[in-house]
């Protein structure tokens, strides 16, 4: 029994598995940010004027803004002039992305193979269409043709700007305006690429769409932008994965994701976030400051966010839903695991505006090591939102005596037909449960994983199958050595 503590220690001490660097020549803009840099990024991407002007407006707004500090996280000041705002693999055709996988540098393909993201046609077997973003640019989008046959556009953001400018102009910034917040404004000014999805009226996307983000170059920031539009009655399930090499300096990732669901549309957005979390001493790691927001614009629309957050040194993200359409539904399922010196301040906002809108929030926080893990959420019911319903369940599991678990839920209600319910619990991992597993022959390590997976089950079951398996695995890795 005395052995237990050390078993648990060992359990948590696992290595980050995606920490390799790809040796590839990159076209990197020198560090620093001013209007010329923005014009340069825009020019490199041969963007139309509206895009360039939008970026400049965002930049001009951003320089008037203050970096926010209300989250329960601490970090040393970020020098925004020391970051390079554009980095692209040199071998990549710059104009409009690769025409096919044959054009993609084999080294890049190899990188994604190592990461377990198959870009080759054998990906067909997995039935997942993948857009891969390497540092700042999209390197390959698979299945583009097959999707186009049913009218779905799935491509890199740059490609969309070139080829579907009217759609981009119509929807970009319509959910997260360029003035929304400090990091969103920065992203609006400098974003280099990302994914674009358009599912036309009545179309049910025949496969899972997926983007895999990879940050490779040192001293760069990654600022991707994702825009997903589901027209009337459309359905799409979208998966996002991310990794980065191990570097001892912090790197900034400030992405923006906008989802638009028109009448009767359903968007499922799943994330498995595994950016490099820094080493066991808190050295290095990604600052993940992300703005994700969905707009249930039409009646009977439905947006569901599912996230498994295991990486990043600091996570600051609140995937939200504006429930504007009558009878619209917003969901948020989250597992956030922090270990060592990681800090996570994550949660959601559900804004009930239409009638008979419903939202569900399930958040599971797991803290280990010396990490800090906070849930921050807002449920807002405006005066006109008749019959709004929200249920929130927020649980935190503590695996060490040096970590923190915090809950900051805000509920603002102005309508007398609303029912809002919030429940939260925080406790240590149960010794009796661990003993019970072990008394049946299961090892201490497996017992911890089993109990923690059980704790997260309500979230994992919302993930598409392939991701659920990956998430379980990640959880086990993240917690290696975590129980003390």
């Amino acid at each position, binding site marked *: 029994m005395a052995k237990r503590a050390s078993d648990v220690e060992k359990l948590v001490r696992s290595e980050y598995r995606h920490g390799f660097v790809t040796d590839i020549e990159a076209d990197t803009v020198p560090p620093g940010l001013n209007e010329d840099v923005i014009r340069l990024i825009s020019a490199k991407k041969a963007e139309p004027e509206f895009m360039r002007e939008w970026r400049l407006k965002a930049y001009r707004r951003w320089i008037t803004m203050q970096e926010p500090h209300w989250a329960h996280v601490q970090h040393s000041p970020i020098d925004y002039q020391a970051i390079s705002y554009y980095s692209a693999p040199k071998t990549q055709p710059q104009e409009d992305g690769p025409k096919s996988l044959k054009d993609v540098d084999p080294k890049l393909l190899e990188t994604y193979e190592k990461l377990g993201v198959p870009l080759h046609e054998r990906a067909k077997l997995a039935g997942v269409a993948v857009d891969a973003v390497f540092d700042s640019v999209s390197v390959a989008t698979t299945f583009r043709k097959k999707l186009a046959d049913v009218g779905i556009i799935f491509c890199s953001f740059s490609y969309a700007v070139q080829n579907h400018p009217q759609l981009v102009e119509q929807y970009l910034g319509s959910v997260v305006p360029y003035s929304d917040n400090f990091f969103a404004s920065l992203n609006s000014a400098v974003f280099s690429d990302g994914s674009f999805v358009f599912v036309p009226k009545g179309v049910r996307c025949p496969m899972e769409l997926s983007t895999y983000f990879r940050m490779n170059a040192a001293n760069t920031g990654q600022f991707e932008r994702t825009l997903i539009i589901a027209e009337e009655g459309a359905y799409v399930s979208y998966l996002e994965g991310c990794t980065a090499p191990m570097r001892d300096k912090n790197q900034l990732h400030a992405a923006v994701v906008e989802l638009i669901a028109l009448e009767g549309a359903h968007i499922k957005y799943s994330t498995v976030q595994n950016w490099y979390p820094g080493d066991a001493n808190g050295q290095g790691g990604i600052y993940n400051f992300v703005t994700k927001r969905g707009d249930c614009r039409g009646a009977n629309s439905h947006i569901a966010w599912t996230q498994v957050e295991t990486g990043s040194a600091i996570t600051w993200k609140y995937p939200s839903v504006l429930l504007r359409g009558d009878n619209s539904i917003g969901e948020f399922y989250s597992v956030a695991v922090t270990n060592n010196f990681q800090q996570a301040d994550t949660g959601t906002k559900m804004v009930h505006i239409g009638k008979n809108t419903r939202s569900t929030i399930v958040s599971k926080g797991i803290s280990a090591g010396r990490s800090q893990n906070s849930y921050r959420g807002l449920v807002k019911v405006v005066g006109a939102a008749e019959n709004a319903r929200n249920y929130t369940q927020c649980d935190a599991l503590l695996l060490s005596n040096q970590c923190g678990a915090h809950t900051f839920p805000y509920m603002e209600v102005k309508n007398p037909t609303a029912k809002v*319910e919030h429940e939260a619990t925080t406790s240590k991992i149960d010794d009796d449960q661990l003993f019970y597993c072990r008394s049946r022959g299961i090892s201490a390590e497996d017992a911890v994983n089993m109990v923690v997976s059980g704790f997260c089950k309500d979230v994992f079951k919302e993930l598409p199958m392939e991701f659920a398996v990956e998430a379980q695995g990640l959880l086990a890795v993240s917690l290696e050595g975590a129980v003390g």
Partner: protein
Amino acid sequence: MNAVAETAPPYADSFAALQHTRAPDWLAELRRSAFARFTERGFPPERAEDWKYSNTRALQKLRFSPATTPPTNLGTEAIAAALLQHPQVQRLVFVDGVHVPALGSKHAAVPGLRITPLDTALREHRADLRELLLPEARWDNDPFTALNTAFLADGALIEAAGNVQVTAPVQLVFVSTPHTEACASHPRVMVTLGTNVKLTLVESYFGLDGAANFTNSCTQIALAANSRLDYFAVQREAQGDFHVSRVYVSQRERSRFASHVYNLGGEWVRNDLRVRLEDAGASVRMDGVYLADRSRHVDNHTRIDHLVAYTASDELYRGIIRDRGHAVFNGKVVVAEAAIKTDATQTNNNLLLTRNGEIDTKPELEIYADDVKCNHGATIGQLDEQALFYLRSRGLDLDTARELLTGAFARVVTDRIAAEPLRRFALEQLASALPQVAAEDGA
């Protein structure tokens, strides 16, 4: 001090006037430093997280001056509704912040219990007074406590030496009366219980019709090992009254604090109740009922700090929001790294009954220890339709049925009061605002 530098800081005139009264050097110095702190910090900025839903603009706009001479014709009957009936009650009455001995109880003193009006203690230059005051570090960040300290003049000292079980309840009544010019009062209450002391304390804030004053109260409570305080604060001020209260509690080994805060009156109310569990075995029960009706604004902020191992807290606040009322609840439970085996429960339930009402609630947990069991829950909803139907099917009209269920909703909190006669008094006070509560008692 930038934009408002040209105009004199609020309360500067009142503070200048106070300089003409005689005071020992230490007190004059304390007041000066507190006023400097208040002037420096000013009223809470609108963006401040703790004031997110409570705008102090209306309070800032009004100019309050201290009441100097309370009405002489005020009799006990005018405040009868506020009085706790008990054969041995020890009562002090303050009118617009000034102690009025004539209205107090005349019962014989209770052995082991010392109740001193603060102005008396100040006049008598009690040597230990300065040590009894809340250390500056604890009000450093709060402008209202600073303001209270700057105008420190009256209130009460309640001290019980060790090993007494006081059966006589203590009641402090603060009456707000109508004036041609609105006035501000800053009562300070200091409660010190020795080891193994048991005491019941009631603070009643009562307003006469037409009053529109500002009461800025501060109560500090120190509980020694094994002591127990049953504390009931009822706030039934007049429709125009502003009320800010600060209650600071520190608890030693195995002490128990049972707090019941009922907000049933006033126009704009903000309460902060902070409890520090400083030794093993200390426990707190923290209950409250708030009624935000008419155009009333009621904001309750509570904070419990579990500082050491083996401490417990159990909190239940229930609110009723109707008419154009706006209620705010913020309950924070902080568990320090050393505070293993903490057991903390917090529940906040709200009935939002009308279209123009608003409720903003935020239960918070900040946990830095691992071996703990903490939970909180918050709900916002309406009366149970099934229960309403059931009552109506038995012949009650809709309004009565609603009142009955609303009363029952609040009554759940009152029923948690273990101590008599406190429970009955709480029920009576609740019935002044929710008449169906008493009807349900059958008595």
